[in-house]
């Protein structure tokens, strides 16, 4: 009589669907959750800047920056970067040592190490002339479908003060990542903690991310409209400062013209844009930027040349 009840044959009941057998991807770092949207927005430019990049070897490169500005102190920066032999991906090489020093002796330095296949460590130092402003140590473990990070900020055993930050991200599906952040700070006579929950949904052409906690909320939406146009929308709310901000940014790419254009509009009545143009066959990139705050009647513009 055959299978009159319409049930599937016994063997297929025990087999999982092919989609569920795909391993879940690693969600990446907590700090990179809003990266796609942030990269759409133009960076503030003011004054005239000349950057000369020089690759000294396959591991070592330096950059000289001269910046003349009416707002800040003009100065010279020396940037040096060393990258080791262990390359996990085109953008991740270990160990990596990066340093930036200006003409007053202030230093920004980072050291990234790969302690084991899944264990990474990072140290960040920031000084203002001879005084240490920031010393921070990170440990990150990347599992198959999760990432756990512990950060110690400005630990001071003598002063009994520390800032500890713990991050955890878990991939629930191929597209959905959920996680959280716990910030604990302590100093003599005071201590406190803030919990923030985070979620990220990645589709083929767009990514939506949300962080919500007692300190406020941060939502971002990134959309890749086509090969030329990318759009980013951001919303931030800070309950402590009682302030909210909305930003809309767009990124236009024209490879045929060697041109990249970024623009932004935000709720603080700021309008800004940066145009970057490469000048082949010369290894030169020209950038022009202008930002206008209609509410405060402030305008500043910048111009930079990058060689190498």
């Amino acid at each position, binding site marked *: 009589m055959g299978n009159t009840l319409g049930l599937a044959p016994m063997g297929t009941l025990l087999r999982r669907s092919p989609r569920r057998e795909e391993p879940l991807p690693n969600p990446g770092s907590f700090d990179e959750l809003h990266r796609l949207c942030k990269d759409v927005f133009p960076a503030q430019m003011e004054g005239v800047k000349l950057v000369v990049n020089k690759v000294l070897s396959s591991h070592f490169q330096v950059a000289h920056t001269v910046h003349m500005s009416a707002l800040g102190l003009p100065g010279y920066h020396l940037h040096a970067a060393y990258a080791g032999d262990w390359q996990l991906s085109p953008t991740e090489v270990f160990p990596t040592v990066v340093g930036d020093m200006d003409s007053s002796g202030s230093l920004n330095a980072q050291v990234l190490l790969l302690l084991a296949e899944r264990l990474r460590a990072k140290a960040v130092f920031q000084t203002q002339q001879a005084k240490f402003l920031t010393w921070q140590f990170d440990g990150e473990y990347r599992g198959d479908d999760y990432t756990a990070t512990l950060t110690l900020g400005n630990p001071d055993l003598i002063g009994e003060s520390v800032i500890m930050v713990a991050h955890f991200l878990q991939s629930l599906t191929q597209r959905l990542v959920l996680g959280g952040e716990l910030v604990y700070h302590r100093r003599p006579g005071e201590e406190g903690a803030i919990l923030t929950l985070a979620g990220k949904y990645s589709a083929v052409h767009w990514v939506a991310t949300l962080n919500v906690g007692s300190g406020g909320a941060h939502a971002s939406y990134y959309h890749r*409209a086509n090969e030329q*146009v990318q*759009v980013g*929308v951001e*919303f931030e709310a800070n309950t402590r400062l009682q*302030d909210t901000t909305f930003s809309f940014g767009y990124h236009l790419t024209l490879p*045929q013209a060697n041109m990249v254009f970024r623009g932004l509009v935000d709720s603080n009545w700021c309008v800004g844009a940066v145009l970057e143009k490469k000048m082949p066959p010369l290894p030169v990139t020209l950038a022009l930027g202008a930002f206008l705050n209609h509410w405060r009647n402030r305008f500043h513009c910048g111009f930079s040349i990058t060689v190498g």
Partner: protein
Amino acid sequence: PLFDAYCNPPGSHTDNVGDWLRDGYRFATDRNDFRRNLILNLGLFAAGVWLARNLSDIDLMAPQPGV
């Protein structure tokens, strides 16, 4: 109380609507109000997301119409 009852008779619908409108106008125009700014920026965020999702048909290298 008698004067109030004469000028604002109980159940005066027009005054309540006027108070609502007045309060609504003050709320909408108070730039220092956190809740007002929150609602406004959330609305702008939603509008920005709608705009972003409808920009897929832009081609910057397409020839201009009529050329």
